[in-house]
């Protein structure tokens, strides 16, 4: 039982990693990027093909891919999303969906139907484990991924709360016109936010490849996981995403215990239950994060 829980927490770490970019885009730019999963897979392929052709470790090739993806995010925002947002709430959904289809099929065209993995390039690391008391083993990779997720979420959260750039991004998100009136370059802030989001996507793409396999169409399931983790955790804070991701993973594991095909269903059902609960509380944003914040002293003071 403890083992299942631990494995779920580690899986949750991966979900948090891929979800935090989506949540960040949504919180900050009010856009749900349906190409999110596809972008992760694009990153995975980039890391893979660099590792394949240069023989360099994926951890290092990832360092090269991150800025490339950041630039891609910036361009995405300036060339596409800026325009799409002006057309209303619904248009970005359609535009990013179209982009997802284009990306998925371009990747299929380029890389074919074979599944790939980054595991072969990291040697023993792909199966090495830490030994914990009680004869429990936790894989090193999943631990690193969980740690990265925590680090990235923490960094993003701090950036938004404490730095001038973070405030500019929040101001642009809240009221882009007034942000401009105050002297903030709203378009630049939005571009940077998008770049940050896609850089985290790059890291999650590498995590995807390291944990297991991926193929050209792996983007859709990743998008759904990221979305479910974000919704379960509540869209108020990034730490909520971590909580939501872990809950999702636990629900999936429980589902798998109940029925051999129950893994995905378990997660979906948890998502629905959370949705029900939230709507039952009359649309007031109920979330794990919200619940936690009510209980802690700082939250109660608000």
């Amino acid at each position, binding site marked *: 039982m403890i083992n299942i829980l631990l494995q779920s927490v580690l899986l949750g770490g991966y979900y948090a990693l891929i979800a935090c970019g989506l949540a960040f885009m949504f919180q900050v730019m009010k856009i749900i990027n349906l190409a999110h999963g596809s972008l992760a897979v694009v990153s995975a392929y980039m890391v893979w093909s660099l590792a394949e052709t240069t023989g360099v470790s994926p951890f290092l090739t990832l360092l090269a891919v991150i800025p490339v993806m950041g630039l891609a995010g910036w361009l995405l925002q300036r060339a596409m999303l800026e325009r799409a947002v002006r057309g209303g709430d619904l248009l970005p959904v359609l535009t990013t969906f179209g982009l997802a289809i284009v990306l998925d099929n371009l990747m299929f065209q380029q890389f074919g139907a074979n599944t790939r993995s980054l595991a072969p390039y990291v040697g023993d690391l792909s199966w090495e484990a830490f030994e914990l008391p009680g004869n429990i083993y936790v894989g090193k990779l999943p631990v690193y991924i969980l740690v990265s997720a925590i680090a990235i979420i923490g960094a993003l959260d701090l950036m938004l709360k404490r730095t*001038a750039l973070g*405030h*500019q991004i*929040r*101001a642009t998100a*809240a*009221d882009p*016109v*007034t*942000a*401009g*009136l*105050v*002297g*903030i*370059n*709203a*378009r630049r802030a939005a571009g940077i936010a998008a770049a940050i989001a896609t850089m985290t996507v790059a890291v999650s793409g590498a995590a995807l490849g390291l944990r297991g396999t991926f193929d050209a169409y792996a983007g859709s399931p990743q998008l759904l996981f990221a979305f479910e983790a974000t919704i379960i955790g509540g869209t108020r804070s990034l730490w909520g995403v971590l909580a939501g991701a872990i809950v999702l993973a636990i629900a999936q594991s429980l589902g798998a215990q109940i029925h051999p095909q129950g893994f995905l269903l378990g997660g979906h059902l948890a998502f629905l239950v959370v949705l029900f609960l939230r709507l039952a509380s009359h649309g007031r944003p109920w979330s794990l994060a919200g619940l936690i914040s009510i209980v802690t002293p700082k939250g109660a003071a608000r």
Partner: protein
Amino acid sequence: MSILSVKDLDVRYGQFRAVRGVSFDIARGEILALVGANGAGKTTLLRALAGANPVYAGSVHLNGTDITQMPSHRRVAAGLALVPEGRRLFLDMTIEENLSLGRTAGRDGEWDIDRVLETFPNLVKRRHALTGTMSGGEQQATAIGRALMSNPDILILDEVSLGLSPLVVDQVYASLDGLLKTGTTIILVEQDLTRAMTVADRVICMLEGRVQLDSATTNTSRDAITDAYFGNSRRKEGLSA
């Protein structure tokens, strides 16, 4: 040379002409009161000057530079700051954070957080409170402070008294008193004619998007402004104001 020069400005919402052929110049250090009924085009004009509304025709020059097509954040960097109607603070951030954002344009000058807090002492104890939890008067003070943080050459105040009780408005103007005497160029919208005429050097009255009256406050009267406000002078029937 005038600090702000507006020529034949035309601003539209779709087909509706909110500002029609407005022209005026402002000299450095002048305090201009912009007066007019709701819907006369005052806010549209000011937002167009600040870059929040696109200009259909005409031009705006700041210190000789053409800023007509400049995005708003660059106008702030050029020295024009607007305190928007309705305050428009960033509600999930504190007073200090809102004020700090005003510094984004990076202009040097006398205005910093300490000076703003001196000017608006009622903000001091709420410095780290979220602006969403504050009263109207405190919000207005913060909004003005935020604009001042950019050390503007010309400060535009849109409807400072909107939604504030008379007492609070007095307080705000009391705080502004020092500012008004420093020689900063100011455009302010004020519905209270008495106050406008006390505080301003010059008054412009707008009606249906056009300038009806443009005169130094010493050269005109309440009656004349009221006439321009309601467009009485255009009516054939004589109605005493």
